């Protein structure tokens, strides 16, 4: 009987295998890193030391010690904490210590979701139990029973909640939380990197409101943030909390050797640049690792794909009875099921687990030997979090990135430096968005009246308050602006969107048990929630059956199809103001406000992987107006180009710019739009506009304004290196063959390089 190969032996085999050699585009090895340890702080309470020792911890990692010292010196800080680096001790230790020293002391933990807060609570409870001290910690969210709410408010030393609950359930009722706000010593913000874009901008305001309430009750809490690797953690933390932060960037946790493999499936259709399906490649790789007895986690992008892979892989174990060695893991599992999977992974009964991105956030499943990523998860931070799942403390780890045929995936596989180099994305927020600001100014006014001299966070707001008085919401008395309305503003404002009126998405898969899945701003819903659209929610596919535009409701039903939908938006764009400009030789770039009149026209059904167009239909919705910020580039018309040549080349170029913006500014593909005008109404010059999809803008195009030269350079490189002949969905969008448009796009891009 043959023996199982170790990771090192397997890699040696692959290095000499001709087929593998061709498909593996890049190898990269990160050397082993020893732990950097520190003693327990001298003042650390005996009971905490006892609890840590029960967990087998006799020394701290250097970053945990550094965190403790900063927190104890009343200094807000942000710690970069990769997976499995013991991040929770960065906040638990100083928080517990302060409560042991002063039982009146309180702490508030914020997690981006309810589920994460509940997960963390069980761990915290266990730690407190091991300490054998009476410290009370509670989660406070929509599920908290009314009977214990009073207890949480009055006696909870540590309250674990989420921003939405803070926004609508705690701050508007702050008088019930006097003992918390009077004694609030620490505010912990876990998973800082998730607070970006519209959501992050909203949360920035919720935190400004929180700080305002703390000031009112006389407390001045210290912020402790932990974040996955992003390029601007300090800047994000400071703009989110409006507070100066120290940065803990050196992590003391040990790591074994990590082998990164960039794997590109073989091309099966050279003209269109179509490659073999990534999912089949992943299946084969996972099977190989299974046979070698290497514990593996496979990431797939949707629930459907997870199920597909699990089905494929289970063929391996179908001859064994009651075999649990291959498991799926996706959103919607019960805590008990999760615990079971975690346990199975620890004791080795589970060998391969296939997961959606649900596992990306904080959930602790321990460490495995290998990780396979099906495609690029959308940003570097997530990619590192997924990769971080592989690598037990001292063991050798294997991370295989299998590229799909999309533009981003192909870019990554051909430019491994992008992922491996120290240039993860930035997470940006834009608290200055006037609509978001006004929303929270209302909430803040509701919570406590502003005086005639007050400011709000870093904002001067007296004129804005006067505007709210004109709107009849505030009343001005001799020294204050009082809330004078029977409305409850927090209920009208959702943190997960910037729009005033959202479309509510209702799942009617089970007619007797319809439920609300979420909401979406009007503007995006024109192209994403039109009738017959395939809407993806946490990896599950839904088809929109009816869109009630008047009532702002979209009714959807779960489906399982092999295509997605893509809608065309006819856009009329007007520049309202030019705020910034830089001039180059042949082009100028601008930043400013634009007004957009958009109308959804038709949609196409596009098959996964092959990106074939398999059907289309009209969309009947009224036009929408959007005022937002934009950055645009206008250039002198290249001589000898005809209108139609330029128009085609610009359409292709716009597609590739749209594909690449999310690489440079951490945002979702649908947070921005790109529009090309051959003769712009503004300057009469050919122009590309990149604008934020949200009313008022959320800072993405402002950032784009700063990176145009690099952006265009990368787009050019990528289109040039794309192996397709005539243009493909991975570079300039699918083209009808033999028009030669790819060359035109390349010429245009070469012309547009800004120097």
């Amino acid at each position: 009987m043959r023996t199982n190969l170790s990771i090192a032996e397997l890699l040696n085999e692959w290095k000499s295998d001709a087929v593998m050699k061709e498909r593996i585009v890049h190898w990269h090895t990160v050397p082993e890193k020893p732990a950097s340890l520190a003693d327990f702080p001298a003042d650390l309470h005996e009971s905490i030391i006892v609890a840590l020792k029960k967990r087998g911890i006799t020394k701290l990692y250097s970053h945990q010690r550094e965190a403790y010292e900063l927190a104890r010196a009343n200094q807000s800080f942000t710690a970069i904490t990769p997976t499995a680096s013991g991040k929770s001790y960065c906040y638990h230790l100083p928080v517990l210590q302060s409560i042991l020293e002063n039982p009146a002391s309180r702490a508030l933990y914020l997690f981006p979701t309810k589920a994460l807060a509940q997960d963390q609570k069980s761990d915290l409870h266990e730690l407190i139990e091991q300490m054998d001290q009476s410290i009370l910690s509670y989660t406070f969210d929509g599920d908290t029973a009314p009977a214990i709410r009073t207890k949480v408010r009055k006696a909870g030393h540590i309250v674990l909640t989420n921003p939405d609950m803070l926004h609508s359930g705690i701050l508007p009722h702050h008088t019930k939380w006097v003992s918390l706000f009077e004694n609030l010593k620490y505010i912990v913000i876990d998973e800082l990197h998730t607070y970006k874009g519209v959501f992050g901008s909203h949360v920035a305001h919720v935190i400004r409101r929180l700080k305002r309430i703390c000031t009112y009750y006389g407390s001045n809490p210290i912020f402790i943030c932990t974040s996955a690797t992003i390029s601007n953690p300090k800047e994000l933390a400071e703009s989110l909390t409006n507070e100066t932060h120290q940065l803990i960037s050196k992590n003391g946790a040990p790591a074994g050797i990590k082998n990164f493999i960039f794997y590109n499936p073989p091309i099966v259709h050279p003209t269109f640049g179509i490659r073999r399906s990534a999912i089949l490649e992943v299946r084969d790789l996972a099977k190989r690792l299974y046979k070698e007895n290497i514990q593996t986690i496979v990431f797939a992008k949707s629930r459907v794909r997870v199920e597909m892979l699990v089905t494929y892989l289970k063929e391996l174990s179908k001859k064994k009875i009651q075999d649990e060695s291959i498991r799926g893991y996706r959103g919607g599992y019960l805590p008990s099921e999760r615990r079971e999977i975690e346990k199975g992974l620890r004791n080795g009964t589970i060998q391969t687990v296939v997961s959606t991105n649900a596992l990306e956030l904080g959930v602790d499943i321990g460490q495995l030997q290998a990780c396979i990523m099906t495609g690029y998860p959308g940003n570097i931070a997530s990619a590192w979090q997924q990769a971080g799942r592989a690598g037990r403390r001292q063991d050798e780890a294997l991370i295989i990135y299998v590229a799909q045929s999309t533009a981003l995936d192909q870019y990554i596989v051909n430019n491994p430096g992008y992922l491996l180099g120290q240039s993860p994305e930035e997470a940006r927020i834009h608290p200055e968005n006037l609509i978001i600001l006004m929303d929270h100014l209302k909430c803040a006014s509701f919570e406590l009246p502003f005086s005639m001299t007050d400011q709000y966070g870093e904002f001067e707001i007296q004129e804005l308050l006067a505007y709210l008085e004109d709107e009849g919401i505030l009343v001005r008395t001799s020294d204050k602006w009082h809330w004078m309305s029977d409305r409850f503003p927090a209920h009208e404002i959702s943190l997960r969107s910037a729009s005033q009126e959202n479309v509510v998405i209702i799942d009617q898969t089970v007619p007797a048990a319809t439920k609300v899945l979420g909401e979406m701003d009007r503007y995006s819903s024109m192209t994403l929630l039109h009738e017959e659209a395939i809407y993806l929610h946490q990896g599950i596919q839904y088809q929109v059956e009816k869109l009630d535009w008047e009532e702002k409701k979209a009714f959807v039903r779960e489906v399982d199809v092999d295509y997605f939908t893509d809608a065309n938006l006819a856009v009329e764009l007007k520049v309202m103001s030019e705020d910034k400009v830089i001039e180059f030789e042949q082009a100028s770039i601008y930043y400013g406000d634009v007004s957009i009149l958009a109308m959804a026209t038709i949609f196409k059904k596009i098959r996964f992987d092959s990106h074939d167009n398999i059907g289309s239909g009209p969309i009947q919705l009224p036009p929408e107006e959007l005022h937002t910020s934009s950055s645009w580039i206008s250039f002198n018309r290249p001589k000898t180009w005809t209108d139609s040549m330029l128009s085609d080349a610009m359409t292709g170029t716009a597609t590739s710019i749209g594909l690449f913006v999310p690489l440079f500014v951490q945002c979702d593909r649908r947070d921005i739009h790109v529009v090309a005008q051959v003769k712009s109404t503004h300057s009469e010059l050919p122009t590309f506009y990149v604008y934020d999809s949200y009313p008022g803008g959320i800072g993405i195009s402002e950032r784009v304004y700063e990176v145009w030269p690099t952006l265009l350079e990368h787009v050019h490189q990528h289109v040039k290196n794309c192996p397709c002949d005539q243009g493909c969905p991975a570079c300039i969008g699918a083209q009808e063959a033999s028009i030669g448009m790819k060359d035109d796009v390349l010429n245009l891009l070469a012309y547009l390089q800004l120097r």
Partner: protein
Amino acid sequence: MSFEKNLLQMKKLIKKKPAKETSLASFVMPNPPAYLEKWKDAGLEVIENQFGLVFVKKTVYSPQFFHGSFKLSHVFHAFKLWNQIEEQHPISTNGQNVVFFDTETTGLKGTGTYIFLSGQLVFKNNQFELTQHLMADPSHETAFLYETGLWKPNQTVITYNGKSFDWPQLETRWTLNRTYLPKLSLPHHIDLLHGSRRVWKGDLTQFKLTSIEVEKLGFKRVGDIPGHLAPIIYLDAVKNGDPHALLKVLHHNEWDILSLLTLFIHSSKLLLEESYTETALTSTNIGKWFADLKMYEKSQDQFDQITSTYEKEEASMAFYYIGFNYKRFNRKEDAYLSFSNALLHLPLLFKINAYEELAKIDEHLFKRFGQAIIYSKEALQLIDGLPELTETKKIKLRNAFEKRLNRLLKKIK
């Protein structure tokens, strides 16, 4: 979109500065509102205290005054009834320092909701006196709250839904003004909504005070404003200075408080006066309430009266509860008789429980296993036909009866 457009034109107004520390200033006397004279002309009195101005309206009633079917002075009779019993009951009071209390607010909840009107009815100098305090504007809130005197200790407040609404809201306002106000002590609080729900369960479908007035208190309002308009009327009055609609809110509050007093009289008599009854249902509800409060003697009195006054059909629920009272005191033969009397007309949901009790006594006391089997089988047949039971509850019941049945079947073998 015009709202967003307006907003964006204001974008230039956003200015940023480093956040600055704000410190709590000492109390500054607010300016009087511009509409002071107008409101005075409308008949409101103005009081000034150390925190600012408050509008006040006082109304007095003679003890002989009738509100609906009740004379106000009957409240003393109600106090007397309560003083005659020893146990504590949710609506019992010794009648000392009693305030009938109701508020009007600018919204439903949260720190942005103000109380703008507080009405208090007390007996003073041989007459009933209603004092309504009206907040002059939000900057005079401290003055308003102080003037209500609600912070004074040893009061008994009687409200309608005050436990979950008026008082918590008052506490919120107090907390926001706590730097200047004396501490708000917790009064003895009687909430008549809770009592009404117990007494008229299954009888009334709506527990709005206005519908109880019509159904039970012999009072019908004419020219009243709907309560939900009160916030908008006040907000409007503060913004425009016109007090006229506001006077209607004061009247609305006055009616609420007078009805509160007559409701207290009516409920107290139903509970404590033997000859004062409404229907078998009300009396059964009252008996059940007493039983739940462990006031078994009072409870038994109610039930006995029902079974001796009404036909078996109407008295079946009373028999049913009497059965449990007997069971509690280990009088199993009496309990058996009561459950048997109840059985015929009981609603099915209760019938299952009655069968269970009968089967238990037959099995364990009388050793009549055959009879116990019959009762268990009857109960089992009922379970499926009860849509008000949840699936889990059904399974639980079914398991329990099947277990009992199996055991009994073994016993007869």
